């Protein structure tokens, strides 16, 4: 079947549509039983988009409640449920799988010149595991939800909460295995499936970032899994692992929980950094500055990320000396993160920059991630954290990382590779407009929260003193702009799948093996295994004198 393919024309016309992975076969079975990494990526794209809007719905409820100082829209219990479900759905069902399972799944085999991932059946299985976890989460959601906060801290979760803690824990447990198997698949693929000539230091930085992410997924997620098992045993069978009355300690839950959940932040941000490395170098038409440093900083973030979990527990009764070590190690994560930002900036320096949509997202990422990262240093400071702990400052900080960073990178990547994934171009004008709307909406939503937190507004309350109202109204207004910014791409990307202009093989003039395949690629990506003879990002700058 492969050999019968004619060499694809660079700009396909409707009259001679070549066979590609989307039209190779039709029907539900061909999608639900597919072993093609590109189709599985699209299955993930559809499912995480669904969860994104569910999580977004709860964000709307939270912001609506906070428009007025009084707790008038929802009861305190319902508000607890709303912000908990927002967190659980967005983290476990959107952010963790977002870039790895969609873009990573689609691109890693193509970027390294392979026909598929090392374990295609495992890849499909991980999507099914994700969906089963998602259905258990939906069950928890429709039968009363859960009100413990996404952190599920004991003893509230283990003893006192009357909401659906067990079902939520089971959902997160199941979904975790989807993440583990995806990471395992990527590590093996990157080790064993690279095309001839594609040495480690010729890999695209996107692949390096995913390698680091995958290591965290494989080594971190099982710790969350066992923690949730212990929680379920305590809640359902009366094993008092975290109950002081029975010899247990609730702080152990926090240690185990954050041992995964802090590295989980790097599962969200590292793939996004990989995307940004691709975008910045492509749209600057310049070889990336300091390739080795960017690649190794991903690895450094993954390693250091495992050693900083205690900075969530400065006020949990952890020893002061442990706190000092965790504080210093947390500051050290700033080094590889800053290396990346400086190197992207240096890549742009004297580059031939174009302001295409993906590059606008990359600019947005760099600015917002820098703010998010620097405010993280405030929180890593032992003394300052006592003032800022559990305030809106923390909420603003991690939204700058997770939304300003991870989601901006995700959308930038979706735009950049959309022509490759669908074979269609999106409307550039609308895309640039919505990127700007998102940037404005995001900052209006979350910057006031830094001020609120600094002034002392705690997180997770449905009512607040009147002097905080102006900033809260600004934040809610920003959230509505942000919502519009998400809806516009949703509409035009969907539209472009049918009506967009046909995409050529390489619409951006970008480097990388994925741009040597037709848009969209064929089922097995390459007719012949490519041979790589040059370094990554050998862009030739257009001379301007």
């Amino acid at each position, binding site marked *: *079947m492969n050999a019968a393919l004619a060499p694809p024309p660079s700009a396909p016309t409707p009259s001679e549509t070549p066979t590609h992975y989307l039209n*190779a*076969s039709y029907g539900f079975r*061909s999608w639900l039983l*597919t*072993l*093609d990494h590109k189709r599985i990526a699209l299955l993930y794209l559809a499912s995480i988009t669904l969860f994104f809007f569910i999580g977004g719905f709860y964000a709307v409820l939270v912001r609506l409640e906070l428009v007025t100082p009084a707790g008038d829209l929802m009861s305190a219990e319902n508000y607890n449920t709303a912000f908990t479900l927002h967190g659980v759905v967005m983290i476990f069902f959107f952010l963790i799988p977002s870039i790895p399972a969609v873009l990573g799944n689609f691109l890693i085999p193509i970027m390294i010149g*392979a*026909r*598929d*991932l*090392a*374990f*295609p059946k*495992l890849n499909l299985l991980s999507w099914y595991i994700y969906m089963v976890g998602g259905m258990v989460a939906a069950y928890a959601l429709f039968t009363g939800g859960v009100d413990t906060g996404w952190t599920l801290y004991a003893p509230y979760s283990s003893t006192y909460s009357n909401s659906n803690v067990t079902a939520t824990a089971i959902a997160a447990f199941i979904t975790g295995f989807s993440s*583990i198997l995806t990471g*395992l*698949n990527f*590590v*093996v*693929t990157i*080790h*064993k*499936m690279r095309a001839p000539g594609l040495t480690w230091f010729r890999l695209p930085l996107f692949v390096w970032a995913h390698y680091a992410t995958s290591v965290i997924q*494989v*080594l*971190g*997620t*099982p*710790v969350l*899994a*066992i*923690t949730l*098992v*212990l929680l379920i*045993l305590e809640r359902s*069978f*009366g*094993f*008092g*692992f975290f109950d002081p*009355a*029975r*010899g*247990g*300690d609730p702080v*152990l839950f926090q240690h*185990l929980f954050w*041992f995964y959940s802090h590295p989980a932040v790097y599962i969200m941000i590292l793939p996004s950094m990989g995307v940004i490395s691709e975008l910045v170098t492509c749209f600057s038409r310049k070889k990336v500055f300091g390739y080795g440093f960017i690649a190794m900083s991903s690895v450094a973030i993954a390693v250091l990320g495992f050693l900083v979990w205690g900075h969530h527990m400065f006020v949990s009764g952890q020893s002061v000396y442990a706190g000092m070590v965790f504080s210093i190690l947390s500051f050290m994560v700033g080094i590889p993160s800053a290396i990346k930002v400086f190197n992207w900036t240096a890549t742009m320096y004297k580059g031939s920059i174009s302001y295409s949509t993906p590059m606008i997202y990359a600019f947005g990422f760099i600015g917002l991630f820098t703010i998010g990262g620097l405010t993280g240093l405030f929180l890593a400071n032992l003394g300052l954290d006592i003032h800022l702990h559990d305030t809106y400052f923390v909420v603003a900080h991690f939204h700058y990382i997770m939304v300003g960073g991870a989601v901006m990178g995700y959308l930038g990547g979706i735009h950049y590779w959309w022509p490759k994934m669908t074979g269609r171009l999106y409307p550039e004008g609308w895309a640039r407009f919505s990127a700007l709307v998102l940037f404005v909406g995001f900052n209006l939503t979350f910057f006031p929260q830094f001020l609120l937190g600094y002034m002392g507004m705690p997180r997770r309350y449905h009512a607040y003193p009147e002097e905080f109202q102006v900033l809260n109204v600004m934040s809610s207004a920003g959230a509505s702009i942000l919502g519009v910014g998400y809806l516009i791409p949703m509409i035009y990307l969907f539209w472009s799948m049918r009506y967009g202009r046909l995409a050529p093989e390489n619409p951006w003039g970008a480097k990388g093996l994925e741009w040597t395949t037709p848009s969209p690629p064929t*089922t*097995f990506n390459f007719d012949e*295994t490519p041979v790589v003879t040059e370094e990554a990002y050998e862009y030739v700058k257009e001379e301007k004198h």
Partner: protein
Amino acid sequence: MSDHSSHGSGLAHQFDDLDQQLDATTLGMWLFLAQEIMFFGGLFAAYTIYRNWHPEAFAEASHHLDIKLGGFNTVVLIFSSLTMALGVRAAQMGKNKAVFNYLFATFMLGNVFLVVKAFEYHHKWVEGLIPGPWFRFEGSTDPAVQMFFNLYFAMTGMHALHMIIGGGLLIYFMVQARKNRYHEGYYGPVEIMGLYWHFVDIVWIFLFPLLYLLGLHNS
């Protein structure tokens, strides 16, 4: 989409040759075992902390475990590792009948372990040592005694679950051996099954002294 795997050789379409396939699946299993180590690691971390806080209560509780049954099970599992290793060797030489026999022996030894474990659990049930509202313990009133049994049931329970999964996998590989699937070039699946089985055995090798042999020199 046609299936490119040719069942005769056992080579899947995404790989260039059997060597690459064996390398990739072996690395995949090692990564899976790394994941397993982290999974059990959470339990071992909890055990280490609580035992350090309550050494006497843990030692006293430990005396209620049956060392003879635990020791017998340890020997059973070590033998099952031997038969598993012989099964892998047979697969490498393409002797499918021997593969079947060795895997069957491994499977039966695994079942002996689980049956003995079930008897131990039953004893604990009768003695009221199941944690929870019905827990009763004669002797120390230290609440950490119950914590020992929390950990005992969580750790051995998770281990037993892995044994049961391993047993299911062994049945699958026995069927494959009956179909004469394995030959000198294609034995990888049996080998990585072996890695999994040895891992589960090693977990028990750690569990046995940590749970059964506490504070014996004092008694």
